[in-house]
Each structure stands twice: as structure tokens, then as C-alpha cells.
């Protein structure tokens, strides 16, 4: 029993590492592989040792808590829409959850413009969730501009990860 639980946890950790890697989320095209993995994670671990349903971890591991944007862009890519459709499904399933959408930018813009750009990104996510039937009262937005990168590097790879909107469970 003990070893079985440990190996299960290891598997979860592995899947977790996989799907929270922003690179994976950023670059894999669409739902194919990653949503398959997510589904597997949900079915095999949700009941006992997985993240609590409706938690930030649940969202991040099993659904995808963030979408990515092009340089100086705020329109949603096909990949982003797929992630947000999963988020909407997840929010309907966890009807009590409210979220804060954080809009972020890379460091290659000026501070104040980026604050406005981050707001546009957060708002683009909010608008799409609304069209998917999520109640406006459940979604708030905030922009951090270039203040909160996930990757402090100064390369195109880092900037891609930082141009994002993250859905935070309150």
C-alpha cells in the first residue's frame, strides 16, 4: 500500500512538472498531448492524493492556469482559446470558485504602457470566459505590467513565458 501510494505520488509529481512547465503550455499546439495527460491525471488521482478540486493547484495541474501572448499583442491565440475553454469547463464544474486574472508583460516595453497592455491581456481572457458563459461576478482582473516575470532572464525564451495571463483562484 505504502509503495503503491508513493509511486502514485511520483506519477502525479511527474505529470505536474510536465503540465506546469510554461514552455510546454506555451509551445505545444493545442489540447492534444497535454490535455490527454491532464485527463489522465484527473482520473487517476483526483479522488485521494491529487490537488483539492477547485484549488489553484487543480487548475494549474489539470487544466492549465495561463495563456500566452505575442510581443505587444493581446489577442488570444488558438492555443489560448483551448486553454480558456478548459478553464470555463472547470469553472462550471467548480461553481463556487471566483478568480482574478493577472495580465503580465515581458520587459521589452516601458512600465506604464505595459501596465495598460497587461490590463488588455487580462481583459481579453475575461471577455472570452464571459462568452463561454462564466458569470462576470466570478472574474476580476489585475495588471502587473512587467513587474512580476516568471522568468527573470533576458532572452526571447524568458520573454515568451512572461507575456501571459494567469488565472488565480481566490
Amino acid at each position, binding site marked *: 500500500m505504502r509503495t503503491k501510494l508513493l509511486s502514485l505520488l511520483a506519477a502525479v509529481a511527474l505529470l505536474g512538472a510536465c503540465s506546469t512547465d510554461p514552455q510546454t503550455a506555451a509551445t505545444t499546439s493545442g489540447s492534444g498531448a497535454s490535455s490527454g495527460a491532464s485527463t489522465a491525471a484527473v482520473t487517476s488521482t483526483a479522488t485521494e492524493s491529487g490537488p483539492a478540486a477547485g484549488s489553484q493547484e487543480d487548475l494549474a495541474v489539470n487544466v492549465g492556469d495561463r495563456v500566452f501572448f505575442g510581443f*505587444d499583442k*493581446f489577442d488570444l491565440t488558438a492555443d489560448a482559446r483551448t486553454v480558456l475553454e478548459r478553464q470555463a469547463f472547470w469553472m462550471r464544474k467548480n461553481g463556487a470558485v471566483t478568480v*482574478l486574472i493577472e495580465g503580465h508583460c515581458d*520587459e*521589452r*516595453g*516601458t*512600465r*506604464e*504602457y505595459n*501596465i*495598460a*497592455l497587461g*490590463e*488588455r491581456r487580462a*481583459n*481579453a481572457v475575461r*471577455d472570452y470566459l464571459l462568452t463561454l458563459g462564466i458569470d462576470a461576478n466570478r472574474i476580476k482582473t*489585475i*495588471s*502587473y505590467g512587467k*513587474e*512580476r*516575470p*516568471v*522568468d*527573470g*532572464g*533576458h532572452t526571447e525564451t524568458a520573454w515568451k513565458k512572461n507575456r501571459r495571463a494567469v488565472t488565480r483562484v481566490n
Partner: protein
Amino acid sequence: MKMRFWGLFRHVALSAALIAGVLVGLPGERAYGELRIDISRGRVEPLPLAVINFAGAGEAARYGRDLAQVIAANLERSGLFRPINQAAFIQRELPVDVLPRFGDWRVINAQALVNGSVTVAPDGRLRVEFRLWDVYAEAQLEGQSVATVPGNWRRLAHVISDMIYQRLTGESGYFDTRLVYIAETGPATRRVKRLAIMDQDGANHKFLTDGSTLVLTPRFSPTTQEITYLAYYNRRPRVYIFNIDTGQQEVLGDFPGMTFAPRFSPDGNKVIMSLSRNGVTDIYTMDLRTRAVSRLTNSPSIDTSPTYAPDGRQIVFNSDRGGSQQLYVMSSDGDNVRRISFGRGRYATPVWSPRGDLIAFTKIVGGQFHIGVMKPDGSGERLLTSGFLVEAPTWAPNGRVLIYFKQIPGGQRGGGATRLFSIDLTGFNEREILTPVDASDPAWSPLIP
């Protein structure tokens, strides 16, 4: 005539009137034509000048040394003066009631000479008298007496520096000023940012907030001891006003969205800022007395970083309404919007010079950031400095020097730095402004009243 002394400056018209009105206590004579270094001519050779330790007995002697040191350092940092090492001085003491031995100063090539005397009055106040001499004309150019409580002695040094600067350049000084900026610590992903304030030379440094809340983009009030800035209290980014004397912070208005990019109007009665709501960012003003709000722009674009012209009649801002970030000027009521930047790249953070003749900006082109200036009609663009990231120019109150911040990227393991730099309008004399920790978003105060 004394052309040898003045010959180092361009466009200097010196008349006998200059020598006339310089009795102690008289303000500088202003009747003659304006003395001005023509900054469009590029680099000016720094003027060699001697600042002798101000004379004084006992405790006053220590103040005398410190005053001379601060004055010399101010003038040196301007890039327009070259203080001569005191070790080279032949005449080593010079109280104000003694005439300089001008020959001794000519030998070491001092063109100008500053001396003074310090006394501690019975009530404990410091009284400082100083003289500024034209060594080759053997004439006094300035003589003033100033007094303050001892704890304020550095301000005396700055006030005297400003008088010297004004007398020798024809432009008002900027040494009796302060900087407010954002002090930064910690890794990029969890940066801690605090409001901080210091004198323009880095002295009297003080953190104003504790770092528990993200704060950005401070600006001084032109009329009160207040700073407007952006803070993320309770995860709601909004414009606040910070009172430097009391430490009190107050949210400005109750807007249905995020407010940011605040600046005071030149009369200090309004704050102009951006309001973002539903993906649209427009420019608003709030009257600080009536709390009345006016909307100045109404477009689906990002309109931000608004700044008033010094006469308050026009506003420059940046907007992406034309497809990319560019600079626009409008009347203070929001009418007559016209684009002024047409070069390659993106333009941001426009700041109108206190003189009114130029607009400084950040420009992003070719993967680099630049600080530049252009005339208010968009002509005459000049880039002053460039780097991986240079941003947020702020003007000295005399419109001659800019301070901005520069991020020097580190490697994968960090090691980068974000620091303040000053640069002359000519693009010369770029210098780091030393701060205890990393620094960004500088804002220069007006001359302290």
C-alpha cells in the same frame, strides 16, 4: 576686458555692469544680457575653479570643510566645472574679509574662486558668508550671506552651489533639489519595491514605504510636500498621494478601474493620470480641491504617460491609436490632438522640459531602448543615450540635465543591476547617481522653496 575668464563659455556677453552689483547681499545683477552656454554646440570644456575650505573657528571649521566639499562636488558633477585639487592651492586660507591673492590663483590656473566664512551664532544657527571671484578680472562676482540650523547645513551648500552655477552659466541651478525614486531589492521574479527619497547628491536618503506593497512611478508635487504614485494596496493598483512630512497615504478618487501614470499639473491643483477599464486606457484629470474628474481622451487605444507643458496649456502623452506607441500633444481640455513623433520605433514616457522648449522621451527601436529629446512640434529629434533598457527620463528644474534609469542585464544567475544615471542635454557627462540599492522610476523635484 575679462574675456579670458569668460572665453570658455560660448555666447557670453560680459559687461562692466556684471562687476557692479555684487556687493554682499545683493542678488545677482540681471540687467545685462543673459549669459548662456550654448548647449547646441556640444561639449563645453569644464571651467577650472577653486573652492577653498570656508574659514571658521572650532566647530565652524568642520562645517567650513564640509560645505566646500559639497559645493565642489556639486559643481564637478554638473560637468561644467573642474574643481582644482586643494593640495595645489598656494593661498590656503581665505576668510571673507581678506582679498584673494589673485596671482596665486592664476598660477594654478583657477579661473574662478569660491571662499567663505562660517560662524555659529549664539542661538546655534550657522551663518555662512561666501564670495565668488573672477580670478583674471580680479573682481567679485557674487557675495551672499545665508543662515540655517546646523542640521540643515547641506542645504546651505546646495543653495550656494546654485548661486555659483547661476552666476557662471546664466541658467538657474538645480542642486537644492531632491529625487524620489523606486528602490528595488530581491530577485526579478519577486522584486520588492519601495518609495525612496534623497537629495540630488544622494545624501539624506530615506525609504518612505516598507516594501510590503508594490509601488511605482512617483512624481513630486510642484507646490506641496507630496508625491503621487501608483501602489498595489489590497491588490488594487490605484493612484495614491503620499505626504512626505506626515507619511500619510491617501488613495486618489474612486475610479471604476485601475488608475496609474499620475503626474501633477504645473500649478499643483490637479493630477493627470490614466484609467484602464475593460481593456481601454484613457486619460483623466482630478481636481485636488473639488475632486471633480474630467475625461480628456476617449479612444479604444492605450493612452498613457500624460505630462503637462510647464504653462499647463498643453499635454503630451503616448498612445497606440495609430497602430504603435507614438507621442501626441493635445490642449489641456483634450482638444486639438496631434501626433508629433514619426520616426522609426515606439515612443513612450514623454516629459515636457521645465523650460518648455523640449520633450524628453523613451524610444524603443532595433531591440534597444534610447532616451532622447525633440521639440514640442516633433522636429529636431536627438537621442542622448541608449542601452538594453533605459527608461523614464526626468528633468532637472532648469531643463538642462536629465535623470533616467538603466537596467544592465545579468546572466542566467542574475548579477544584473538597475541604476539611476544623469546626462547633460548635450548627451555628454553621463554619470551614475549612487543609491544604496537598485533604483528605477526617478522623479526630480522642483527647486526647494
